[in-house]
């Protein structure tokens, strides 16, 4: 509620029924009864008032026992007045909204008018269309280029893949060959089972390693001394 409500005194203001004064639809929820629980939260203060004296001057002796009471307030009338204020503010805010809309509309029209007349709009549109065409052309060229580049890339990728595949194949072949060779050589390996036999064989067939080899790889069996 209003802070003024707290400051006011529920005075014995003799007034007839005021509900009729507001008209229909005044009290939607509450009835025109006495205001509930109105406790004035004021206290008589002895501060200097305005006029000839400043706030630092003490009050006169004649005002020593003065008790200042707030103005009397009739609760019914207060409710009526509050309701009227509420409706009034509602209407005012609606009006303000309408005026605001009007102002904005006018500003918008002004802006549109200031932007240019019909010829300028026409030229603007023409230029925009030309710009669109240019953009389209550029886009076409760009797309061509991109497509070509993509194809190039794909081709390169394919080549690389093929090379890789070939390399892998070659490698595998090499490895296969090596494996086979190893398998073949494995037949001549010395295993614990062959050991005795091979030793016997070596002992039986002495080989002469008494030769030299020159830079060209030819074996030289004849030495200088002999």
């Amino acid at each position: 509620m209003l802070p003024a409500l707290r400051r006011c005194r529920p005075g014995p203001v003799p007034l007839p029924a005021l509900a009729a004064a507001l008209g229909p639809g005044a009290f939607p929820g509450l009835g025109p009864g006495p205001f509930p629980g109105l406790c004035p939260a004021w206290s008589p203060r002895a501060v200097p008032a305005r006029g000839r004296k400043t706030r630092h001057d003490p009050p006169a002796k004649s005002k020593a026992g003065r008790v200042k009471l707030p103005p009397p307030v009739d609760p019914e009338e207060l409710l009526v007045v509050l309701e009227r204020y509420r409706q009034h503010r509602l209407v005012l805010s609606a009006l303000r909204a309408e005026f605001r809309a009007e102002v904005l509309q006018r500003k918008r029209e002004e802006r549109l008018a200031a932007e240019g007349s019909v010829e300028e709009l026409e030229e603007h549109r023409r230029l925009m269309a030309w710009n669109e065409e240019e953009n389209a052309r550029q886009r076409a060229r760009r797309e061509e280029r991109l497509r070509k580049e993509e194809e190039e890339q794909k081709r390169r990728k394919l080549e690389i893949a093929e090379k890789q595949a070939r390399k892998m194949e070659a490698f595998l072949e090499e490895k296969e060959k090596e494996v086979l060779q190893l398998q073949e050589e494995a037949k001549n390996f010395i295993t614990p089972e062959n050991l005795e036999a091979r030793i016997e064989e070596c002992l039986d067939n002495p080989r002469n390693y008494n030769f030299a080899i020159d830079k060209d790889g030819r074996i030289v069996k004849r030495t200088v001394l002999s």
Partner: protein
Amino acid sequence: AFSAGSRLLRGRGGHVVIRFALGGCTNRPFFRIVAANSRRARDGKYLEQLGCLDPLPNAHGEKVAGLNLERLRYWLGCGAQLSRPAEKLLGRPGAGAGMGTGGPGLAPALTASYRAGLAGFLPLHPMTVTGAERLRRRRQREQQPEAAPAEGSAEPGTGT
């Protein structure tokens, strides 16, 4: 002078207000209805004058006021507040029906939507209505004591 005004206006706060600026001479007031910053002096620099009001009745017993409704609507649309007497003035039944010496007051241009429900340019202020009611009641109460002593004097006259 420039710095004084700008120190008022440079800080935060302050809003546009449509209020009365008092002018005239001793015992001869004259109000200008004015849109100004709320922190300006009452008679100080204003944004725009929206009309005037002569509070003293003229030779024909009329109190004349002039309003520029178009600019009023503009300022209200820009979010101006109204002082209480300005609201009461604008809510008076004569305000919308074409004021006296208004500017290009577009009274006929008011749309039917907010013409239908209003008496004036703005709706009637609640305190106007309340004040009128109180006055009427006080007058009734004054008439009743006059009637009661008249009856009281008449009855003993007829009784005796």
